[in-house]
C-alpha cells in the first residue's frame, strides 16, 4: 500500500464566540492514499468545508483547531512553520472553491493569476511564467489559450473560470487537490465536464482528490471511498460501491433514498422523491447523544443520551450508529 498523502486523525474544530467555543467538527479522521479520489459528503453546515480549510491550514479566527492531527505527505502541518506551510500550499496541496465568480481577482488577467504559481513556487521569472500559463490553460482544455491568458475573469463564463481555477491548482503538480463543491455553482452540463476534467487530469498526474460535495451521486461516480458527515461527525465511511449497495447508517440510507433516478417513474409510477424530514441541528444546540436522532426513524432511548462510537462495518469501513449490526 502506498503512503497516504493526507492523514487526519481525531480532528476537532471550534468557532470562538461570545458564549465560548462551539464545536463544529468533532473527532473527524480519514486518510487518502496517493492518487486516490476520496469523497466527503454531507448537507450544508455539517463541517465539510471547514475540514477542507483545516487541511489547507487556512482556518482563521474565530475558527480554531483544538485537537487532532493533519499530516500532508507525512508532514504534520501543526509543527510546520509559516514558510513551510506556504510551500506545502500550492506545491503539495491545492484547493478549488465553490464560487468561480468571486474566487479570482477581478483586476488581474487570468494568465497572471496562473503565472503567479510558477513565480511563487518555482522561482520562475514573470515572462517565462506567463508562457507556461498558456500551457497550463491548454491542459485544462481551454480553446485558444494564448488569447485567453490576457482575459480578465469577468470576460469568462463560470465553467471557464473553474477551468482557470483547476489550472492554478494543478500548476505545480500537487499531491492532493481539495475540491470544495467545485461544480455547485455551475450548469448541469458544465458540471459533468468539470468533474471529468478534474478526474482525468488528476489520474494522469497521480494527484489525489478530496472531493467535497452535498451531491452523493456525483461523489459516488468520482471517488473510490466516501465518508458521510453529519453535524460535525463522520457517521459512515466505506468504499463507494459498498456504501451505496449496503448503507448501514440511517442517514446514509436517507441520502441514497433522496437520489432521483432517471426512468424511475416509468418503472415504479409517479411517486414523491423520498426526503429526510427535519433539518440539521445548529452547532449551538449541543445536541446530546446521536446527532441524527431527532430525524431518525430508528431512534430509541440511548440514542438520545449516548453518542454512538464508531464501529467497523461488516463490508469494511466504519459506521457510527447504535442500531447497526
Amino acid at each position, binding site marked *: 500500500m502506498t503512503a497516504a498523502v493526507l492523514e487526519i486523525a481525531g480532528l476537532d474544530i471550534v468557532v470562538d464566540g461570545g458564549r465560548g467555543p462551539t464545536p463544529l467538527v468533532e473527532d473527524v479522521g480519514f486518510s487518502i492514499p496517493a492518487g486516490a479520489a476520496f469523497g466527503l459528503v454531507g448537507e450544508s453546515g455539517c463541517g465539510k468545508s471547514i475540514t477542507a480549510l483545516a487541511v*489547507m491550514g*487556512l482556518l482563521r479566527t474565530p475558527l480554531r483547531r483544538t485537537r487532532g492531527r493533519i499530516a500532508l505527505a507525512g508532514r504534520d502541518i501543526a509543527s510546520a512553520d*509559516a*514558510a513551510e*506551510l*506556504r*510551500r*506545502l*500550499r*500550492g*506545491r503539495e496541496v*491545492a*484547493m478549488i*472553491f465553490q*464560487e468561480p465568480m*468571486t*474566487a*479570482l*481577482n*477581478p*483586476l*488581474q488577467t487570468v494568465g497572471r493569476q496562473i503565472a*503567479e*504559481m510558477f513565480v*511563487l*513556487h518555482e522561482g520562475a521569472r514573470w515572462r517565462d511564467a506567463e508562457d507556461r500559463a498558456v500551457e497550463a490553460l491548454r491542459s485544462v482544455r481551454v480553446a485558444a489559450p494564448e488569447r485567453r491568458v490576457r482575459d*480578465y475573469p*469577468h*470576460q469568462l463564463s463560470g465553467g471557464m473560470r473553474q477551468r482557470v*481555477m483547476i489550472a*492554478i491548482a494543478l500548476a505545480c503538480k500537487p499531491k492532493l487537490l481539495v475540491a470544495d463543491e467545485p461544480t455547485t455553482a455551475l450548469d448541469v452540463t458544465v458540471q459533468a465536464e468539470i468533474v471529468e476534467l478534474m478526474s482525468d487530469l488528476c489520474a494522469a498526474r497521480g494527484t489525489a482528490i478530496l472531493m467535497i460535495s452535498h451531491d452523493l451521486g456525483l461523489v459516488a461516480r468520482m471517488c473510490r471511498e466516501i465518508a458521510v458527515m453529519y453535524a460535525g461527525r463522520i457517521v459512515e465511511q466505506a468504499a463507494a460501491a459498498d456504501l451505496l449497495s449496503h448503507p448501514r447508517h440511517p442517514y446514509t440510507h436517507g441520502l441514497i433514498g433522496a437520489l432521483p433516478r432517471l426512468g424511475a417513474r416509468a418503472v415504479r409510477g409517479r411517486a414523491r422523491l423520498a426526503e429526510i424530514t427535519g433539518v440539521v441541528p445548529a452547532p449551538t444546540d449541543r445536541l446530546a447523544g446521536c446527532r441524527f436522532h431527532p430525524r431518525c426513524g430508528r431512534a430509541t432511548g440511548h440514542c438520545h443520551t449516548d453518542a454512538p462510537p464508531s464501529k467497523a462495518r461488516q463490508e469494511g469501513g466504519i459506521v457510527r450508529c447504535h442500531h447497526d449490526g
Partner: protein
Amino acid sequence: MLRLILARLLAMIPTIAGVALIIFVLFSVIPGSFASALMDDGRGAMDPEVAARMRAALGLDDPLIVRFGRYMRQLMTGDLGTSFRTGEPVARLVGQRIGASLELALAAMGFAMLIGIPLGFYAALRPGSLVDTLAMIGAVSGLSLPKFWLGLMLMYLFAVHLQWLPSFGYGGWRHLVLPALALGVSPLALLARTTRASVLDVINADFVRTARSKGMSETRVVTWHVARNALLLVLTTVGLQFGALMGQAVVVEKLFSWPGLGNLLVESVFQRDIPAVQGSILVLVLFFLVINMLVDIAYVLIDPRIAVQAS
C-alpha cells in the same frame, strides 16, 4: 478613451449652466446690492441719486431675466464679467488667485493621502490592535474638529508659542505648512476610515482566500491582491474630497490670509461684488467637475470591468 473624455466634457455644460442659474438667482434675491454695500460700509452717506445712477450704470435695475440672459451670453464667450469693485475682468482676478488655491489644496490633499491611506491600511491589517483603535479615535476627532479652531490652535502652537513657522501670509513652503495642516486633517481622517473599511472588505473576499491557498506570504497577498482592489474603492473618496477641498478652503484661507479663491469669494460676498462671486464659485465648481472626471478616467484605467462598458 478619447470619446469618454469628450462625452464627460460635454456633460459638464448643462451642470455648469445649472449652477450659474442657481448662483444668479440666489444673489439676486439676497438683500443689498453693490451700491448699498458701499454705503453701509461707513464710507459716508451716499447721495441716493448717485446710488441710483450707479445701479443704472451697472445694469442692476434691469429685470432678472434680462440680466441672466446677458450673463449667460457673456459666459458662452468665456467672459466671466467685470468686477464691480475693481473694474477688472473677473477672469483676471480669479486667475491671480487660483495658483495659491491649487497650491494649498494640493499640499493639503498630499498630506492627507500620504498619512491617511497608509494609516488606514495598517489599521485594517491589525484590526482591534492599539494602532487601529487610536487611529480610528483620531479619525473621528479629526472629522469633527472645526477647521477654524484647528487653525487657531496650530497658529498658537507653532507660530506664537514655538515660533517655528509664520502665522499667516503667503510665501515659501513655511507659509504653506500650517494652512495645509488645518485643511488636510479632515480629508486625512476620512481617508484613513475609508481605506480601513475597504481593505477589510477586500481582505475577506474569496479571491484573497484563493491567494492564500496558493501559498503566498501575507505581505504578497496584500501587495499583489488586496492593495489595488482596496485602492479602487478609496479613489472615489480621494476625488470627492479633493474637489470639495477648494470650497472648504474658504475658512482656512481667510484665517491664514491666504490669497486664494476662497478669500476672493469672501471679500466679494461682503461687497456684493456679484460678478466676482459668481466667477469664483463657477471656477470652484469647474474644478470639482474636472477632478471627478479624472477619477472616472482613472477607474477605466485601473478596473478592466469598466473599460468594457465604456467602449
